[in-house]
């Protein structure tokens, strides 16, 4: 009974239904290579979604993470090329720290000036993108110049299968990184006081202040983590697509926020879970992927994503109203 009422169960049910539906229309959906490729598409959006989830739970919103991701990615790769450095761990750490620093700027304005997170992150997003293109450069870094270590790392597979026609396909090991980060986020949200303070802040900021939560710490933590995850995901993304494009990720904020809201997080704060978010990400990626397979124009994909945001938000608003009644 309690299990049935959980929003994760509902989302999983809808997801299963959608999978059966899509599989009926297009039986190729259930083929292993399609499923592997689906999971691969989950990785970047999923990691970013973890950050957005945290921000939404705290009652905020973040639209700056795609800008932070692209800036951290492009700056790191530029730096690697300039220094002639070819590695994995250090660049990933650098990109993460860059994202964290950007996130701290968001946190500063949200906490210090009590500004609306949407406005703050719109502003930092525009500034970071403008700075990147105006000062750092506008040229794409293609496969021939990309650091090889990064590409090799991102090519690692967990399992790989050889088809009858000799081609091979596999499940990228990046999925493990995503799962690891999701698990860490889950544990943080559920079993640490800083995680609970995010829920408290999203539930009632005034009560959180009276209860004695250190809101400065909480807000900085939230936006720094969101930024750090974005920076990390940005660099990982370039390794996976063998390309560093300073104009990448435009419009991604809508996809990720849609996925998180679809996963049951409340746009008004206070509610949301990692499992739900992962299901939401999977659902969104799957729907977009199916639209591509069905040769639906990208403009119409936008319409679908927009519809998902509105439908999911309406649903969660309706649910919250019923709960309050």
């Amino acid at each position: 009974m309690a299990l049935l009422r959980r929003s994760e169960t509902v989302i999983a049910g809808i997801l299963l239904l959608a999978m059966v539906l899509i599989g009926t229309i297009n039986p190729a959906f259930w083929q292993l290579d399609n499923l592997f490729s689906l999971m691969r598409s989950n990785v970047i959006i999923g990691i970013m979604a973890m950050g957005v989830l945290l921000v939404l739970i705290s009652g905020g919103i973040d639209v700056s993470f795609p800008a932070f991701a692209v800036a951290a990615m492009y700056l790191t790769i530029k730096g690697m090329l300039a220094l002639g450095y070819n590695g994995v761990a250090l660049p990933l750490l650098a990109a993460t720290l860059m994202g964290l620093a950007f996130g701290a700027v968001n946190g500063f304005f949200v906490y210090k000036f009590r500004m609306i997170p949407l406005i703050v992150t719109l502003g930092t997003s525009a500034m970071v993108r403008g700075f990147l293109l105006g000062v750092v450069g506008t040229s794409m870094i293609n496969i021939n110049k990309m650091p090889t270590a990064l590409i090799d790392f991102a090519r690692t597979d967990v399992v790989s299968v050889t088809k009858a026609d000799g081609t091979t396909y596999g499940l990228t090991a990046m999925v493990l990184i995503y799962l690891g980060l999701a698990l860490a986020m889950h544990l943080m949200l559920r079993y640490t006081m800083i995680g609970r303070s995010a829920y408290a802040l999203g539930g009632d900021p005034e009560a959180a202040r009276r209860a004695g939560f250190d809101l400065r710490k909480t807000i900085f933590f939230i936006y720094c983590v969101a930024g750090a995850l974005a920076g990390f995901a940005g660099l990982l993304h370039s390794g996976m697509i063998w390309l560093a494009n300073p104009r990448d990720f435009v419009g991604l904020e809508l996809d990720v926020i849609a996925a998180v809201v679809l996963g049951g997080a409340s746009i008004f704060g206070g509610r949301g879970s990692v499992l739900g978010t992962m299901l939401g990400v999977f659902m969104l990626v799957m729907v977009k992927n199916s639209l591509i397979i069905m040769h639906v124009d990208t403009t119409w994909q936008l319409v679908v994503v927009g519809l998902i945001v509105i439908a999911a938000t309406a649903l969660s608003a309706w649910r919250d109203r019923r709960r309050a009644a």
Partner: protein
Amino acid sequence: MSDGFIELRNIRKVFAGVVALDAMSLVIKPGEIHCLAGENGSGKSTVIKIMSGVYQPDGGEILIDGRTMPGMSPIEAIAHGVQVIYQDFSLFGNLTVAENLAMNVHLGEKRRLMNWRRTRAIAREAVDRLGVELDLDAEVASLPTAGKQLVAIARALMSDARLIIMDEPTTALTRKEVETLFHIVRDIQARGIAILFVSHKMREMLEISERITVIRNGRKVAEGPTGDFDEALITRHMTGSDILNEPYVWTPPPGPPLVPRLEIRGLTVPGKCEDLTLAIRPGEIVGLSGLLGSGRTDLALALFGMVPGYKGEILIDGAPVRLRTTQEAIAAGIAYVPEDRLTEGLFLPQSIKRNMLATSYERLAPKLVIDRSQAEEMTQGMVRAMQIATPTAEKPVMQLSGGNQQRVVLARWLLTDARVLILNGPTVGVDVGSKAEIHAKIRELAQHHGLAVLMISDDVLELVQNCNRIVLMHRGRFIEDLPAAAVTEETVSDRLKTFT
């Protein structure tokens, strides 16, 4: 020396040049139930915040156990056992009962990790200590107000409280829930914990407290055992004046019988009210009471054009009207002030003028452009007629006192040339002083302006004091039309009790 647990001595507090508290003294003895009575804006919340260390006084001293507490912080106040239950309870609606209860313990111990098993154990103990049933895994948002209050009380009890301050704890409770709350309060008292009840509801104060301190304009004006007080005395202390309690008398003028201002014949709203017939003559104030769901509000809504599908006849000054929209109702001369509207129907940051004219713009601007000089004239006239204490009609309404705000709302409806005034719960949530002002104004409107007033209220005393006739409604029908002679608080209450 004092025998108090906590004592305020000559406390003074000034906000931006405005004196909120002056020479305020208050002694709370260990384990007593004390009431702090005062009207809205009298300084009650400032007293709470001084006692809980949220504000620092600008003068005077706070003593706990006879020792002065200079510069007391909220943490020190809590450490000495002072707990406040705010009106909004300060709970996290999105979290479970258990987590809400254990949160302060975790925070107090400066924990980094969340131990769910311990959280449940802490919560279980807190709930057991209060001796109530609460589902620890329920989300707080899903609880009724009374349930949320229990969580807040349980949480306050956990921290070895010696004084629990409750700010207007009965505001959102039903009568039955209030009784449960009082039971719990006495139970808490039995453990030697003092309770400070902050309220403006006199009957409840007299029922629960042992001692009463009355505050007016930031000063203590009376203090003593509850036995020394009665409602009239508390009211006098709270408002600083006697409040008239003369019943409203209306006698038909000599000559031919008056044409009723408002007459309804066989009014029926399917499923809500059945075959209602009533006539209100100019100058009459007719009370309407009945249980919730008796159809009284549906009647009001039908009269205000919000139930287009009603059956039956409505006549204004003898002329039949058909009310399908609120615009038609306003045009017919009907004004409806819904529950709480006297305070909530105002645009607080806007000027008196704009508020007054809010329903008159259509008449002022037949050709899109507002006739400014006429608007000015209308507002000035109303400010004078309603005796609103303000130098200018441009003043924002929020800077007015409660009573003056109510007059602005009434003025708005008078400007629409209302001939019938329907008031639904005209003084719900209004303090004693403003209540009397509103009543006086309503009487004046009926008596001197010939309005017909229909006053819907749960407050039997309010009806008895202000209406020349009271109609009782039950299950969509008028059950009784009590003339002035039969109208006493007892008869009306007794009749209402038979309606269950």
